[in-house]
């Protein structure tokens, strides 16, 4: 765990130092230290672009990884992720409605906020519907199947909208769906932090219940765990975490599915009291690492973050499927 903190620090420092414009390390320290005797341009690049991007990566990495862990535990399915409940599809539908539905090629702050708000509303509506279902359906596997169906249904609607959307709107939507850590800064970063941090804190309160749920719902109930309350807490925290990140950064895949497995492998623990913090840190590490890769160090290009996380995540998922021993609930 301590090792992970150091790895994370190293990655963050590396990420801060890298970029199309080279800024000497000493200068970075001075800028972050609040000194003004440095290049104005460098200060701008660092404080307006790099630092917000890294903070976003830290928030997104921990949020997606934690919600993935929660979903895998509650559904007792190693391939569940933050998006199985259709939260990402809900957010995408919201974004699609603004980008494709409006038909306007408006740009700037208004459009950006429109997308974020619509994506947020989309994710929240899906969450509400699922919570209502959860109150009535006892079997957790039924909920999983409903979530997947829901997700596919929403994707189908988005496909239809894409088919009828005009070329420019389509391009903006595709760019949104590629995901980006760089579009969040200033006020939006503050809002994102204000939702993600309570979401992460809420996730800590699901640890005890989730640990008992590893044994199945019957045992959890006889151990005095309120299964329904745990389930609702988990869904709310996942929706806040995954929903907000998707709204602000677009859908970022595979962090949620892959990171809990990496954390499990590295810590060798299944107890969520260790695994959840480890997953949080691991998620931060992997997304910051992906961010470094996406900038293709030494070049001027920036690759879409979603592609990088997929390329890192897919081998992990394949490995999980192939090597799945009795090791997972």
């Amino acid at each position, binding site marked *: 765990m301590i090792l992970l903190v150091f790895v994370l620090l190293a990655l963050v420092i590396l990420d801060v130092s890298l970029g199309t414009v080279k800024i000497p390390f000493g200068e970075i320290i001075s800028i972050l230290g609040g000194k003004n005797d440095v290049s104005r341009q460098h200060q701008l690049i660092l404080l307006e672009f790099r630092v917000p991007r890294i903070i976003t990566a830290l928030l997104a990495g921990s949020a997606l990884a934690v919600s993935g862990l929660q979903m895998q535990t509650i559904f007792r399915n190693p391939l569940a992720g933050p998006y199985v409940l259709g939260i990402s599809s809900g957010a995408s539908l919201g974004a699609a409605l603004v980008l494709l539905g409006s038909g306007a090629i408006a740009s700037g702050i208004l459009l950006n906020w429109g997308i974020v708000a619509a994506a947020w509303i989309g994710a929240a509506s899906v969450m509400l519907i699922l919570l209502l279902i959860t109150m009535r359906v006892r079997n957790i596997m039924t909920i999983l199947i409903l979530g997947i169906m829901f997700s596919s249904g929403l994707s189908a609607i988005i496909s239809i909208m894409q088919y009828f959307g005009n070329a420019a709107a389509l391009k903006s939507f595709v760019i949104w769906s590629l995901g980006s850590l760089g579009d969040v800064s200033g006020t939006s970063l503050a809002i994102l932090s204000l939702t993600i941090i309570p979401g992460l804190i809420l996730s800590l309160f699901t*640890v005890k219940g989730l640990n008992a749920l590893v044994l199945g719902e*019957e045992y959890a109930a006889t151990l*005095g765990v309120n299964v329904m309350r745990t389930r609702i807490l988990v869904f709310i925290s996942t929706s806040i975490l995954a929903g907000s990140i998707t709204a602000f950064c677009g859908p970022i895949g595979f962090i949620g599915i892959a990171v809990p497995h990496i954390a499990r492998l590295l810590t060798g623990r*299944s107890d969520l*009291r260790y695994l959840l913090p480890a997953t949080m840190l691991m998620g931060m590490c992997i997304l910051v690492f992906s961010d470094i890769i996406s900038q293709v160090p030494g070049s001027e290009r920036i690759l879409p973050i979603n592609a990088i996380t997929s390329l890192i995540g897919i081998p992990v998922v394949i490995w999980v499927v192939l090597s799945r021993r*009795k090791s997972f609930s």
Partner: protein
Amino acid sequence: MAEQRNNLLSISNLSLGYSPAITLVESIQASVGAGEMIALVGRNGSGKSTLLRTLAGIQNIRKGEVRMNDKNIGSMHPAELSSLISFVGTGFREFADLTVFELVSLGRHPYTNWWGALREADKQRIMESLKFVGMDGFVRSRINNLSDGERQRVMIAMSLAQDTPLLILDEPTAYLDIPNRITIAEVLFKLKDSGRSILFSTHDFDIAFAYADQIWIINDNKMLIGAPEDLGIQGAYDQLFSNSGLAFDQKNMRFGKSRKITKKICLHNTGNSSVDYWTSRSLERAGFKVVKAKDADLAEIFIEQRDEELCWILRMYDTSRKYNSLYELTRDLKLGS
């Protein structure tokens, strides 16, 4: 009437079933005393698991009342119930890759804080529980690497760590070999000795007869209750599987298909009780009744034992044949009769 006994758990007028239309067991009246061990028996699908799950608070009570320490469990908070009744389910489902310690520590759930942090006293209780079931050498082992018997003992340790006066176990000896079954039964017996009450379902009548203070039999939507021997006198065992054509054999304390006896045969005992016993068993299994010489139909059997050699001589229609094993003897007898 004896003096009023202090009941730990009392069940009155409880009915079990799935939907309003399907009733499994009607109006159960039963009680569990402190330090009692109770075996619940009955056919597959008779409602044993449903009863246990209802008492453990997993399923809601449809009709009737269950009181624990004279308090209705239906109105109890789950956390309160979990400090009074613990539950070990049937068989084993794959859990996450927990260690033995991690699994048993879940038994402390009713007593830990919001984060599930273990205090020193909790850890001590976990170790005591593991020691009680003889699994204290496996603290760091992964439960998925244990044998079925070891895993069952760890599950019992978990419910032990839960520190409840009543333990409910659904078929704790299922899927286990004989030594493991006895180990589990002995662990439960030791628990009973320590003053806890144990209610377990089983298909293992040997264990029920040998260990239980009470047997609860579910048969024909009703529950019969009594000491194993009381039920024997009432003829409860004879009825239990009668519609499957099974009779209860009192001499051997087991159920079986009653065999059609074809012939009577005379066996001259040798005095070696083991040889005599197994020989008459073998003849009975082949469908012969062992009788005195004057009642026999045609055949007689002599056993000869010289030095290490053992042989059976069958005399029939004035001819004699010699056999070196009971297998050959009974095979010929069946062909001849």
